[in-house]
């Protein structure tokens, strides 16, 4: 336990070193970054890791995912996706507490209780009774606490991240009440990873087909999605082109 605590403290300290002084202001706009200049000091390494990931994906993960999507009917896919999402509700509950979002925290634990007891999480009954899912994680908690994203990182097998989100993931690994209390947690981790990969299968196919630079495209999509979770008026604030007479 002491070892775990040390690791958590170390990660939190590293993350807080990244705090940008401009974020100390209360009117913080945590995600007002320029999408063209994402901090990416280890780009050559990241590109190599991304190529490695695509190689592994091509030879091992993609065939599994394609077979799964071919065999499993839509309701089964949805059920599996709901199951893994439901396992994350307790860690979302904790994240929301740290963010001071007590209503959302209560909502998350309520969803977990309802969905687990009615269908082991495979069916999202809670949404049907008005308890909508709210996505969050420890990376978002750190961002809302004023921690800047730090450098962009592509992790082997796992994929795109940044120092802040990676720190959040490590904290989650140690404090997640579900995965810390089930035997063989690695099976859950692998299952969850494959499920997440299956969910973005079509998008990844498009990245393969329609991109001149898939590294840049994935990086941009990653940051856009994270910013959407952080910014209330995200869609309104996205950059738009200058208007030319057509």
């Amino acid at each position: 336990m002491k070892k775990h605590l040390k690791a958590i403290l170390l990660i939190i300290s590293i993350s807080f070193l990244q705090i940008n002084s401009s974020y100390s202001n209360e009117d913080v706009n945590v995600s007002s970054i320029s999408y063209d200049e994402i901090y990416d000091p280890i780009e050559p390494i990241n590109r190599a890791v991304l190529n490695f990931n695509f190689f592994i994906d091509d030879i091992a993960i993609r065939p599994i995912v394609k077979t799964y999507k071919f065999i499993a009917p839509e309701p089964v896919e949805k059920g599996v996706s709901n199951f893994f999402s439901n396992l994350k509700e307790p860690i979302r509950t904790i994240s929301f507490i740290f963010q001071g979002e007590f209503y959302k925290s209560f909502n998350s634990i309520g969803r977990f209780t309802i969905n687990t007891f009615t269908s082991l999480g495979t069916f999202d009954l809670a949404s049907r009774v008005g308890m909508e899912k709210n996505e969050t994680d420890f990376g978002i908690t750190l961002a809302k606490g004023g921690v800047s994203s730090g450098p962009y990182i592509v992790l082997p097998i796992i994929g795109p991240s940044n120092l802040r989100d990676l720190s959040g993931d490590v904290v989650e690994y140690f404090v997640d009440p579900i995965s810390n209390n089930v035997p063989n947690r690695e099976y859950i981790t692998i299952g969850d990873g494959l499920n997440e990969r299956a969910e973005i299968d079509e998008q990844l196919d498009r990245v393969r087909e329609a991109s001149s630079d898939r590294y840049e495209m994935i990086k941009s999509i990653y940051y856009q999605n994270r910013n959407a979770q952080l910014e209330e008026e995200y869609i309104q604030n996205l950059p738009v082109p200058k208007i030319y007479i057509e």
Partner: protein
Amino acid sequence: MKNYILIFLIIFSFSSLQASEVSEWFEEESNQFLEIMNNNEGTESENYERYKYFINKNFAVKSIAYGLIGDNIIGNSSQNDLTLYLDVFTDYLIKTIYKLAKSNSSSSIVLKDVDIKNDIYIIKSEISDKNSSANLYWKVINTGKSYKIIDVIVENTSYFVTKKSEFNKILRKNRGSLEALIIEIQKI
């Protein structure tokens, strides 16, 4: 006080009218898009021509294309290169949407909401087939003659922002050469 209420009412009625106009345009054009998308008759080239017509009519192609490369590149490039770039980009945009539409069969696009910010309409819609649905946002401008789309945002991913990152990278790698970008786009 009465004057303030009157001004408020005029502004409110004017923006409601604008929103209803853009909603009508959107309903009409999204239905037409679905018609093209779900039309399995006709040859490949006929279908491609239909998409071409639809995109030229409804997208602010020049604004998107020029917005993706930025003022500096525009200023430093010859008119010939810019014309060629615009042609190549238009073709690329049509092919992207054509491919995307071909790999999906959609049964409906439902308008959810219209918002206006800085003279840009943000139309929220939901696109769905029998298995799944996704939020689709359209950023639209009024050119005076018609409405034109300047960005499409699927869930949270903006076409304009994503392509701008890609194009900027190519331009930076090639010291701002528009010719290099044109070659890269043609390769896709």
